[in-house]
């Protein structure tokens, strides 16, 4: 890092990926763990928060009027002999992927973009397309280094001590409110080739789609469905399910080539004064996507990058929604609440909310030890919607009630509009989380716009 002192503390207007709700904070770029501790112990009245790559959708990674730490300097990546990887919290998953693939390994869990930091992935306890098999990223943490507001660095080995595990678990999903993660050691999984063998199934309606997704014969490590968020009536919930497994060398029959393009996307979206995404263009996109998928196809070889990170190919695609921005509504419900998925699609179709991207996934058991970790066994639906849609606030409030009545919850990493009571009702562990925070952070140093808005 060659940052001059003048670069070390810069006021910036920050938003999340949805480009809504900006607030200004002083962004500080610590060069060492020692600097991180110093920033925490010398916090001002508006507190401190670590920001990763800003890929959470709402206000999770901002702290209006306070300090925001960018740990970009703590980004070393080291692959150990036993296959575990040790990474600085500021490293991007895109820094880890090539190192792992070169050794025939892959991330145990990856979100739908590789431009997130290790710290951000742990703080949100992210899930991937393999949650039903492998759980969330928190299930693969062997060790985490965490600096608490008193400036102490805790080396939290999984199973090291009950108090250590409690802090570790609360940090997984804890949205940066328990301390600054500076480094982590993660298990990895084998990926003998940079290819994924993919089976595709096209489903004409939601019942067919959900039946396919729960069919034991269709069990693969990776499973995700894209749902046509613009289809109504008989076609409501039609979608394309992709099922995948890492390809063995035999399956890849000697195919080489770059399955993971390096770094920065070639195509980018410039800032736009208005959104080009009208309801018609979004519907057309969904139609084409649905039509181009085969009814059923087995054994297609797809590169790791297009398979896991299709959106990463277009830089700044969040700008497509124009200056007003967008939000993502993501909830999880137990199997008994499967109908909430249908009602959500119906309701959003009814108010004419066009969704470019709706994704349906299965969740395996969650992490009850982590009070704010999102996944619970059952279904999760994520829908992108421009914030300008009339009637959206009311529709989502009512859907919240539906989700809660079904025993479900919302994902904090995506939230930009929930109210405190909705989060408290969805996360029964919130009281424990608050208790732990008041122990480790009696001065209330760790705060975010999200934590203030939702009274976490």
């Amino acid at each position, binding site marked *: 890092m060659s940052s001059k002192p003048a670069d070390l503390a810069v006021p910036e207007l920050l938003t999340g990926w949805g480009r*809504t*709700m*900006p607030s200004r904070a002083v962004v500080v770029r610590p060069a060492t763990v020692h600097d991180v501790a110093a920033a925490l112990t010398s916090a001002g009245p508006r507190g401190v928060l670590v920001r990763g790559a800003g890929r959470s959708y709402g206000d999770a990674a901002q*702290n*209006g009027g306070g300090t925001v730490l960018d740990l970009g300097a703590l980004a070393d990546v080291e692959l150990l002999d036993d296959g575990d990887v040790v990474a600085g919290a500021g490293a991007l998953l895109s820094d880890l992927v090539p190192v792992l693939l070169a050794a025939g390994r892959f991330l145990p869990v990856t979100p739908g973009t590789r431009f997130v930091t290790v710290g951000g992935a742990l703080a949100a306890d992210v899930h991937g397309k393999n949650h039903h098999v492998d759980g969330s990223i928190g299930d693969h943490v062997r060790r985490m280094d965490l600096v608490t507001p008193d400036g102490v660095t805790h080396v939290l080995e999984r199973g090291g001590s009950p108090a250590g595990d409690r802090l570790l678990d609360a940090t997984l999903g804890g949205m940066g409110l328990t301390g600054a993660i500076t480094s982590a050691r993660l298990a990895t999984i084998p990926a003998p080739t940079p290819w994924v063998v993919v089976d595709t199934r096209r489903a004409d309606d939601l019942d067919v789609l959900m039946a396919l997704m729960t069919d034991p014969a269709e069990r693969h490590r990776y499973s995700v469905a894209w749902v046509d968020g613009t289809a109504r009536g008989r076609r409501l919930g039609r979608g394309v399910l992709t099922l995948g497994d890492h390809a063995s060398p035999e399956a890849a029959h000697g195919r080489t080539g770059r399955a993971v393009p390096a770094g920065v996307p070639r195509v980018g979206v410039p800032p736009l004064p208005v959104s080009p995404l009208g309801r018609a263009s979004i519907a057309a996109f969904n139609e084409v996507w649905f039509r181009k998928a085969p009814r059923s196809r087995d054994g297609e070889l797809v590169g790791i990058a297009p398979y896991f990170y299709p959106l990463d190919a277009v830089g700044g695609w969040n700008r497509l929604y124009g200056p007003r*921005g967008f939000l993502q509504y993501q909830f999880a419900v137990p199997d008994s609440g499967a109908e909430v998925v249908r009602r959500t699609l119906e309701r959003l179709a009814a108010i004419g909310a066009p969704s470019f991207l709706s994704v349906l996934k299965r969740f395996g058991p969650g992490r009850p030890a982590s009070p704010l970790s999102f996944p619970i066994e059952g279904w999760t639906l994520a829908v992108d919607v421009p914030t300008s849609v009339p009637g959206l606030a009311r529709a989502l409030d009512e859907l919240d009630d539906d989700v809660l009545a079904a025993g479900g919850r919302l994902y904090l990493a995506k939230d930009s509009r929930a*109210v405190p009571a909705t989060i408290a009702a969805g996360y029964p562990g919130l009281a424990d989380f608050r208790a732990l925070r008041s122990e480790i952070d009696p001065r209330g140093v760790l705060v975010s*716009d999200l934590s203030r808005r939702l009274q976490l």
Partner: protein
Amino acid sequence: MTDALDRATSVLVLGGTSEIALATVRALRSPALRRVVLAARPSPERDAAVAALTAEGVAGVSAVDFDAAGTTTHDALLAEAFAGGDVDVVLVAFGVLGDQQEFEDDPDLAVEAAQVNYVGGVSVCLRAARLLRAQGHGTLVVLSSVAGERARRSNFVYGSTKAGLDSLASGLADALHGSGAHVLVVRPGFVRTGMTAHLEPAPLSVTAEEVAGAVVAGLRRGSTVVYVPAAMRVVMSGLRHLPRTVFRRLPI
């Protein structure tokens, strides 16, 4: 923090019994709104406003004592309001209209009105701006008036207080640029409220609810200035450019 769907969570009203302000609070009402502080002089009207909003389901409504002319008390009052949590919208709504002829007959009355409308405005706007800047977000909404755009024979004392307040607010909007905090200057024409009940409504007159709607729309768009009704912008632009000799003789 105002959420992604433009819903404020917390509002501070200075001039908490103003009809326009109360209509604005009603227009900002949402499940996200959880704190409303009405700063006003103690009165049965103030108690009634708290009771009415609460009865309508607005959450967390409370009142604090506030006199716009008592500028030495403003620091503590505003600090306390912000200490209770982030404030998304500060609404500056107090004001006295007065009577032009009385102002000319007794300049002390004019000075009093200026103390409230302008001096009180300077005091609260500068202090609120500083607090909004410190929290890195939020909007200062200032009720100006088209009366401040060009002094009229019939109410230039009031107009001059609004002109001063309007200039201050417009300057603050620039000063706060990039701070995360914003200023919205509201320039209504004739609004049919208690303040104007004794007057014959002027052309293009509006209701408090219409002003409230324009404020909410302005907040959503991130505007710096809104006219109510919107057509007033064009009317005022015309009036500003009239030769003085003509303007003086207009029956306004």
